């Protein structure tokens, strides 16, 4: 029976992640097969279309050179990664404007040595190398009648337009953010996922103010039906204008009335890549720097990319810290109100004396006092966003003096409530996701009211209601509270804590089942065994 329990909980080796849902799919053909190129251009085109299936950013530019016996050429490249000026200067212009075709006809050698002016040029005759080079951002040049092809460098350098993330900064890790240009955004993702498996599907939404949305996913990793479902929901939107990704979010999420959308918003390409590698999909926009990850869970929203860049001890520590911050941000003022107004016996006597002394001059009940302070704090936050950056200091000074000093000294608020609200504010700023930290501000209000009217019981009842709602919520089929409820023990390694990278062998069970295994299972590093390598004991002896 114990065996059964272990099995059910997914603790036994070989159960868990490989078990369900949907069982293991037949392995999708991922890498292009390594077969030779064909001599016929049309055959090659067909193979290209097959390899770069569902890549709407692939450009195939066909042209003809030579007057007496014209030859068809085909330039193939991924649009976001290639610089058009270079492409024109090195490849198209020399070939198309003034081709001095040698008497022997157009050969690869002629193209390579005399016609194409690019700095780097390589020759391939097999599909695997060819497709990978194109995915890397090079331009492929196919010639009709030749079973060899060239790749030419014409890299787009858009590093200067890219800025640092504003709302999701990390201290250690890449600091590139999306911007308002769809092509750059795609390039940022493509740069990190240089593979033919990355699908980029283009959908246009909005009749007047059009937004181009790229649906990104990894062809063999994404879970069943997700891309189709996203596209269906996007195509359903009939409206005159889309101005921000938040609008799209409201049109396509699963739970229209829920507090959380179940979709992640990010401006960090590395977050998108991590999501794609977990079997999820992403929507990248041409109008806004905020991309959408679909679906997300509470767990994945609580993670910061930094957790994976820091050492796992610290990564785990900061995750626990953030979960603590979430609870504090939601519950701290409510607990303060509940305990001081209903459950005074829970406070140690000395502290109770101090609290009473500081509250003696305050005319309001604790709940009203907390609400006033909460209101002031929310106002400060709102004003901080609206004000021009140069006035930022002013708000800080006004806030500190107004709230910290004068409110207390005039007896409008007690110092304790200022401490609690400050703690709450710091906590809500330390959450990694903008979506969560904004909703927390709203939820907190409800908890303060519940605490004011029914004390701890009210808080617990409301908390149960909130978890009921979150338990029921799904986003594109994925329960919002997984892996906690429904529980999958294997995924807990990457939830409240972060296990070392060499232990995270499997993708999240619910989204990554199409290809469960992330890495080999024997990656635990160890010092070289004595005798195996040159620097071992023998030499020392």
């Amino acid at each position: 029976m114990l065996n059964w329990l272990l099995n059910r909980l997914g603790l036994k080796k070989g159960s868990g992640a490989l078990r369900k849902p949907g069982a293991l799919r037949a392995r999708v053909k991922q890498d292009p097969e390594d077969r030779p190129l064909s001599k016929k251009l049309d055959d090659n085109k067909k193979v290209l279309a097959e390899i770069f299936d569902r890549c709407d950013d692939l450009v195939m530019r066909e042209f003809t050179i030579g007057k007496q016996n014209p030859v068809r050429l085909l330039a193939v490249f991924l649009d976001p990664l290639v610089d058009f000026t270079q492409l024109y200067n090195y490849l198209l212009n020399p070939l198309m404007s003034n081709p001095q075709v040698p008497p022997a006809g157009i050969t690869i050698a002629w193209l390579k040595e005399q016609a194409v002016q690019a700095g780097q040029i390589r020759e391939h005759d097999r599909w695997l190398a060819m497709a990978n080079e194109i995915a890397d951002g090079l331009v492929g040049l196919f010639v009709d009648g030749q079973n060899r092809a060239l790749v030419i460098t014409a890299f787009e350098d858009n590093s200067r337009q890219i800025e640092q993330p504003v709302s999701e900064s990390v201290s250690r890790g890449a600091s590139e953010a999306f911007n308002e240009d769809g092509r750059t955004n795609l390039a940022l993702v493509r740069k990190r996922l240089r593979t033919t498996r990355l699908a980029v599907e283009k959908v246009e939404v909005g009749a007047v103010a059009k937004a181009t949305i790229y649906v990104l996913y990894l062809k063999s990793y994404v879970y069943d039906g997700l891309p189709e479902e996203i596209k269906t929901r996007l195509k359903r939107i009939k409206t005159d204008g889309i101005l921000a990704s938040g609008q799209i979010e409201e049109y396509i999420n699963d739970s229209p009335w829920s507090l959380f959308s179940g979709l992640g918003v990010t401006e960090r390409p590395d977050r998108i890549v991590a999501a794609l590698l977990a079997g999820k999909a992403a929507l990248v926009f041409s109008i806004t720097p905020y991309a959408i990850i679909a679906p997300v869970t509470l767990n994945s929203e609580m993670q910061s990319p930094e957790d994976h860049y820091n050492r796992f001890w610290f990564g785990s520590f900061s995750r626990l810290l953030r979960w603590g911050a979430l609870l504090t941000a939601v519950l701290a003022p409510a607990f303060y109100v509940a305990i001081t107004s209903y459950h005074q016996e829970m406070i140690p006597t000395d502290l109770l004396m101090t609290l009473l002394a500081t509250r003696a001059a305050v005319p309001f009940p604790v709940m009203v006092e907390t609400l006033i302070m909460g209101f002031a704090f929310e106002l400060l936050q709102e004003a901080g966003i609206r004000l021009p950056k140069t006035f930022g200091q002013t708000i800080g000074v006004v806030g500190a003096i107004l709230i910290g000093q004068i409110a207390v000294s005039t007896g409008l608020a007690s110092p304790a409530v200022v401490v609690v609200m400050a703690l709450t504010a710091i906590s809500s700023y330390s959450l990694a996701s903008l979506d969560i930290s904004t909703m927390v501000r709203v939820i907190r209000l409800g908890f303060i009211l519940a605490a004011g009217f029914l004390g701890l019981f009210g808080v617990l009842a409301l908390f149960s209601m909130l978890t009921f709602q979150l338990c029921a919520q799904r986003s594109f089929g994925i329960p919002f509270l997984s892996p906690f409820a429904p529980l999958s023990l294997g995924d807990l390694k990457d939830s409240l804590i972060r296990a070392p990278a060499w232990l995270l062998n499997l993708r999240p069970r619910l989204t990554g089942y199409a290809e469960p295994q992330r890495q080999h299972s024997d990656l635990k590093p160890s010092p070289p065994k004595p005798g195996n390598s040159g620097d071992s004991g023998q030499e020392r002896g």
Partner: protein
Amino acid sequence: MLDNGRISSVQLLFLLFITEEATTILYSSGKAAELAGPDAWLATSLLPTLYALVIVGVVVALARRFPSQVFTEYLPEVVGKIPGKLLAAAYTAFFILLATVIMTEGVNLIHIIDFPRTPVPVLGIVWAGVAVYGAYLGIECIARQNQLVWPVWLFSLLLIFLLASKDLHINNLKPVLENGLLPVIRGGITRCPWRGYVFFILMLFPYLNQKQEASQAALLHLGLATSTSLFGMFVMIGVFGDLVTAHLVFPFYALARYISIGHFLERLEILVVIIWVAGVIVKLAVFYHSAGIAAANTLGLKSYRATLLPIAITTVILSRVLYGTNLKLVTFMFTTYPIIALAVELAVPALILLIAVIRKKGGKPIADV
């Protein structure tokens, strides 16, 4: 089947555990100590578990014959239309009564220990509201909620028992079986109805996604529940002695209050309040859900959700009418209730199973693993 939710066998195990333990540990410990004296720890583990084992046998056999229907759904098929509907109505009434009892228990504790001046109906309405919301969202959601509550529960129980066992005096538990087996049996009877809640498999079976694992989950639950009550009574009587335990209103709450480690780790009763509210809300949601389903089956409705609000209102009113004081509630729970429970949990399902076998109703039982 009116709810399309799916639960796993582990979720079933957790649900069964919470439906028993959420209220038992606080409410029925004192009575067992009163009737069985120092042997209460034996009383709460022997007879109730035997009784529950029989129920598991009956109930799983019956549920397997109708794997895609809940109990109240196939009653008319087995015993005929009119008697079947009448029985389904009786079960609806029973679930409503049970939900009333649970809600009253929940409210009373909060009222007595924390909110003596808040009107009881207010607490009841809040409580019922939250649980009905859970029931409205469906069994899948309740099971998930329970998965969040469960670790908190287990952690708090273990913490309280372990910390309290510092003051355990083994002499309080002696002599074992001083007055023979009779007090043990009498004490055990008071606990039987709660251990017997394992009969809820009848209402939960169709939602299981691994149906052949129902009996394993039930047996594991019985093991867990038995050890919890055995260990719990052991510690309570060991710390307080049987006389004090019998006279405390909530011995477990008192136990948590009693803990004081170095004047630093104190006030653990907050844990009891937390697990009490969280656990009883889940338990109540399960009962509302079952009551709703049973009512919808009886009335032939297409959705059970419409029945939830009337049921909730009924329970809030009944709770005031039937059990105005905690004393009335306790008296009912330990005198009348075991008899009703015996009929509902064991006798009727056994009878239905017998009829189904004789009349050859229901599909072939699913083969065991």
